[in-house]
């Protein structure tokens, strides 16, 4: 095989990495290099340095160390049975790209993933070496996200957590049956055990030693995972159940949803369909409802699939009109959070204002409420929705107009 240029390798190995949705670079340990002895800072809110025309933010240099892989996961472009061109970065090349991109303010750090070469341990050793070189030889204080390999040895996971801000393991499929079918070499139990392990290590690193010192940090920005949506038959309820289970079990920072997207050189097992982007979007909205609005998976996805026409909170409100209208001057925080058009900030401002005076309808918009969605569901001084809340056609105010099906 002819030797590939760095540019060509970058092309192959970033193309191979783009199906991973995660790009977070926020949180974790506060570091900077104001003292002049190193490069980089992290720990505040993340920064998106560019946006690709697919609307996804580019915050990290997201690449694979190599796209050679011994696994045969049907949904993945790098599976062993794919005809895609293969390449491999050396440790030095990844370090150089990261540092040079970082110095020019293109990125917040590195998100390194890899195909499995030879064995999980061999692969993990090289990934850990890249992270260590960045931290020790280059004094790099930016963000590092390492994808960990579930079967790798515990010492390697230990070291990965020492150098990286975030670790992640993709659970890939919402159900174990799906995983067994599409990713025969992966094992859902092992993935969950590995996540449990990361949670335990993170908790242990937060305890003080006997001498009262803080222990070495372990993945201070937490762990995350990704679920591919639309490659198997699982419905949204199954996906959201899986997510709330993962948040509770392993204290994940995020679960990412990635609409299964056609890949060049696809496997026979999977249909080549347009990625279900709207479904992905609704899942993210539902995920937010689970995490910040006090909903549970059974409530948002009671019908199995989320409503594609209206957002899940509005859909819930339309199904539960008996709970509305809500009086913004009296309702408690939990109920206010369930009003369509009210976000967490709106509710916070509303509660703060209520301590001083009564809230009028026209006060709500400046507080950030989306009145088009909220109006039918609230009572405020100077406003009552009257019959609107129970109007049979209320849904039509929000849903997109029906479209004539094309005849061909």
């Amino acid at each position, binding site marked *: 095989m002819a030797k590939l240029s760095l540019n060509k390798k*970058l092309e192959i190995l970033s193309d191979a990495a783009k199906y991973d949705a995660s790009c977070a670079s926020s949180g974790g340990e506060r570091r900077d290099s104001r003292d002049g002895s190193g490069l980089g800072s992290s720990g505040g809110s993340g920064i998106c340095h560019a946006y690709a025309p697919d609307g996804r933010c580019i915050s990290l240099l997201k690449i694979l160390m190599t796209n050679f892989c011994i696994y045969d996961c049907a949904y993945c472009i790098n599976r062993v049975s794919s005809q895609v061109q293969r390449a491999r970065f050396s440790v030095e090349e990844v370090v150089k790209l990261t540092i*040079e991109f970082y110095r020019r303010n293109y990125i917040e750090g590195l998100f390194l993933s890899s195909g499995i070469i030879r064995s999980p341990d061999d692969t993990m050793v090289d990934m850990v070496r890249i992270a260590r070189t960045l931290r020790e030889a280059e004094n790099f204080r930016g963000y590092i996200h390492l994808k960990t390999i579930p079967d790798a040895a515990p010492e390697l996971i230990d070291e990965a957590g020492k150098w990286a801000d975030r670790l992640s393991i993709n659970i890939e499929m919402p159900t174990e049956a799906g995983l067994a079918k599409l990713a025969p070499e992966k094992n859902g139990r092992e993935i969950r055990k590995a996540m449990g392990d990361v949670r335990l290590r993170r908790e242990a690193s937060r305890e003080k030693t006997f001498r009262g010192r803080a222990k070495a940090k372990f993945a201070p920005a937490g762990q995350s995972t990704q679920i591919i949506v639309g490659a198997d038959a699982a419905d949204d309820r199954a996906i959201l159940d899986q997510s709330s289970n993962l948040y*509770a079990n392993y204290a994940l920072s995020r679960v990412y949803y990635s609409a299964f997207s056609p890949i060049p*050189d696809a496997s026979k097992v999977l249909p080549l369909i347009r990625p279900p982007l709207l479904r992905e979007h609704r899942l993210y909205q539902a995920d937010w409802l689970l995490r910040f609005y006090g909903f549970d998976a059974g409530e948002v996805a009671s019908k199995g699939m989320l409503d594609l026409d209206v957002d899940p909170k509005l859909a819930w409100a339309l199904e539960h009109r008996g709970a509305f209208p809500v009086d913004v001057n009296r309702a408690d925080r939990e109920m206010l959070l369930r009003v369509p058009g009210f976000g967490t900030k709106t509710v916070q401002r509303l509660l703060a204002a209520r301590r001083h005076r009564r809230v009028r309808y026209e006060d709500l918009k400046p507080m950030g409420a989306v009145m088009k969605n909220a109006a039918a569901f609230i009572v405020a001084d100077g406003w009552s929705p009257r019959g609107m809340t129970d109007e049979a056609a209320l849904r039509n105010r929000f849903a997109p107009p029906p479209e004539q099906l094309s005849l061909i």
Partner: protein
Amino acid sequence: MREVRLPVIGTVATWRHEARLLAVEGVPSDEVLWHCGEGSGDLFADGSNASNNVASSIEIRLSKVALSSIQSALCHSDPERFARAYDVVLRLSRGDVRWGDRSDAGVRRILEQAKAVGRDIHKMHAFVRFRELPSDCDRRGFAAWFEPEHNIVEAATPFFAKRFGDMDWMIVTPTITAQFFDGTLAFAETTEDARLPKDDTEDLWRTYYASIFNPARLMVKAMTSEMPKKYWKNLPEADLIPELIRTAPERAAAMEAARPTSPPARAAAIQAMAAKPSPFVPAPGSPEALRRDAAGCTRCPLYRPATQAVFGEGPPDADVMIVGEQPGDREDLVGRPFVGPAGELFDEVAASAGLHRSRVYITNAVKHFKFKPQGKRRIHQRPNTSEIEACRRWLDHERQLIRPKLIVAMGATALQSLTGSGDGLLNRRGRLEQTQDGTPLLVTLHPSYILRLKDRAAALKARSDFQDDLAAAASFYVADSGMR
């Protein structure tokens, strides 16, 4: 009319100073004209600095949040910002308006402008693109040209000083240039346009940008709402965008139309080579075999949300077998029984009762953790009868394997599994019963019951009962081994 002229560099600090002086003099807000930088000034200003309407002196008092938002809003490009801020500050200090009250037009405007400025600062942090300059010292040199919407250079650049501490850099904007040399950040008015040399790394970045884009997910609006076109002219990657958008549909269509290919010849060879050697198969009926089978148990639905089955542990010739309810949060993650808070209490009480954990076999009636997810926590749920029944098979196997002389049932679930009924635990505790096959069975409390008791006296009593029971088990075991 008073006229205050603020400098281009240090505008906010000077405004604060001037506003404080004016407030002390008691000058009302409509009596002041604010200017920034060189300008013709107000044609109608009479030039006299004496004010006719002087009210009483005001001491400015502001909360930290208010001050920080007002300072941000002062970086906005709106020429009215200085006057508005002075007016709001006076009203806040007099107590005429409450900070954060968005129904007040002035406060709302300041909050909105502070937000716009914050966004502009954020975009500057994101979209500055450095190019390397030739450097003859150890520190590498970089420079960038950037056009912010508001007057944010002084507020936004300390971020770069923290981030790029080991290199020299400058950011040139149409009005102010920020320079960072040898660890010192300084500002000067921009005198000429910056001409930046070419930087080859930009080609790599452009390659990355084009490759990370997925043509099957084209969403131009999502991009332009976060990366508005006004920033594009200084982004090295931006001129790729039109072509990427134009070719995306055909690239996506080509992917959809492409027929699946057959795997390359090497695939089979690689997979054969990578195939794991067939795993060690323990002899049927051995503890290892039992443990392995239990790990794959799907006899009841509890296996789905849990991490793993937690099997018992202890010496295979143990005389005493301790049976608890089910693994908890920590046991589920670690994969060993009684390693959480209840396990700690058990270890502590058992040690003082003379029962050493290393000498007993300890296990649970149910091997998977039953819980309800709630945010980032798991709320323990009691296993129901069918789950206990389904799991009894494993407990029976363990009993056959260990053949204990005494079984200690901790709590109602263990008791139900071992005797068929968990009723009346508190009456039965401390009593010696029998399992169906005649093994002596000592009934006691579950340590997590003791942990849950809120009443201190009740908890102490329960703990001492628990200790008595474990001591009884220990003496049974001593007496029994003495007999042998």
